[in-house]
């Protein structure tokens, strides 16, 4: 490359460098149009993202819904076991529609709380077996007439009065025969009106059994009451469960709020109740068309 070439390049560069040529107005308009077009394209991106996430959510929902049938079956069998367990605790007797494990826990708690009262009754039983039997006979008869919602209190009062009055002693078998049907009838009638109290009469099954294995009728009487007590809290299962559990985690808080708003059995969202969990896990979701329920073991 000759020196002349370099000089020429330099001259071209120097002369053209300072040159300015004003563009027409359409250039700026074109720039604005292009920038706006690009903006519009960009603004579509979040919309597409939202649409995609909704699609994914629905897809997952359908997936779990199909899978949910199996889970529901598992839950059903699980519930069946729990219900059986409930019967065992109640020592046989009439069956009821125990809806959840919580009922069992609740009834057990109540039983423990009222153990002392019932213990008194037992000692009385021990002292005067024949008397108690006759008293029971009286009680059954009286109770069938008496107001059903104060059964236990009436029962207790009858116990005390029975001792003093000493009604004519009848044979144990007769007592049992008489007691059988009316007692059950009475309990059934009492169910809707009585609240949690009747549970109290139930607790001391085991001592009753050990002390007095001879009198199956007495056990039946107790278990009858117990079953009634188990069935009753079913009227407000969700609330009772929440109150019992207490609010320890964020999930519990959500459960309480949802329980206030959503009165369905399957809440719109429900977190696990287990105490040992540091974190709350979602155990069920009910969106109406999509229901997901996890077996909370």
């Amino acid at each position: 490359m000759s020196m002349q070439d370099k000089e020429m390049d330099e001259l071209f560069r120097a002369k053209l460098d300072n040159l300015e040529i004003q563009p027409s107005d359409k250039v700026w308009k074109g720039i604005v149009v292009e920038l706006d077009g690009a903006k519009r394209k960009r603004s579509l991106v979040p919309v597409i993202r939202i649409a995609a996430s909704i699609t994914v959510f629905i897809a997952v929902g359908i997936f779990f819904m199909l899978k949910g049938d199996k889970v529901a079956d598992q839950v059903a069998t699980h519930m069946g076991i729990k219900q059986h367990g409930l019967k065992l605790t109640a020592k046989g007797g009439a069956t009821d529609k125990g809806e959840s494990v919580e009922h069992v826990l609740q009834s057990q708690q109540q039983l423990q709380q009222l153990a002392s009262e019932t213990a008194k009754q037992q000692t009385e039983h021990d002292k005067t077996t024949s008397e108690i039997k006759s008293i029971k006979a009286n009680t059954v008869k009286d109770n069938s007439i008496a107001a059903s919602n104060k059964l236990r209190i009436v029962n207790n009062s009858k116990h005390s009065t029975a001792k003093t009055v000493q009604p004519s002693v009848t044979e144990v078998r007769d007592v049992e025969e008489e007691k059988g049907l009316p007692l059950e009838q009475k309990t059934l009638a009492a169910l809707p009106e009585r609240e949690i109290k009747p549970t109290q009469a139930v607790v001391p099954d085991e001592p009753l059994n050990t002390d007095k294995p001879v009198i199956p009728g007495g056990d039946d009487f107790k278990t009858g009451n117990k079953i009634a007590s188990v069935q009753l809290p079913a009227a407000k299962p969700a609330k009772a469960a929440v109150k019992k559990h207490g609010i320890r985690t964020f999930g519990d808080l959500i459960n309480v709020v949802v329980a206030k708003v959503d009165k369905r059995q399957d809440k719109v969202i429900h977190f696990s109740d287990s105490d040992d969990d540091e974190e709350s896990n979602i155990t069920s979701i009910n969106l109406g068309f999509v229901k997901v329920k996890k077996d909370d073991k």
Partner: protein
Amino acid sequence: MLFLKLKHTTDDLITGCKTGSRKAQELLYKQFAGKMLAVCMRYAVDKMEAEDMLQNGFVRVFQKIDDYRGEGSFEGWVRRIMVHSSIEYYRKHHKMMQVEIDETTPGQSANAAAVANLDAKDLMALIQKLSPGYRMVFNLYAIEGYSHKEIGEIMGISEGASKSQLSRARSILKEQVIKMEGRNYEHAG
């Protein structure tokens, strides 16, 4: 607040552009449009083509303005974008065009003084008369300072082809300068 000022520094406008202010973009465009159109003109056949390059270049400037970190002059940054815009335009529209070999008589040469006597618009006209391939190589090498290797990569030609095209472009320009000088001399005379 920024636009209540009568005069805006380039930095103010860059900051405004980074926030997406249309007013700042317009002011920045007005500040650089004249110079940048002159850059584009060297790569274009005519003003219309140059304005297309200018428009594409400024759209890219505003879209990529966040990439400008204040290192080096802003004008230099914008200028590089304009050159790239012009190269892209060339690729789209002239890639398939065959390089014309102008049959010029070798041996004729214009000296530097002859070039110096011409004004910028005349020189621009000479460059624009070159075929697209020659024009691109001459612009990139002589004015922008690219190497033959870089030019070869940009244009998709070999390094040797870039050299020979530059050489050819120069000789054409020299001839044109002599012709133009002769015409100017006749007019003056």
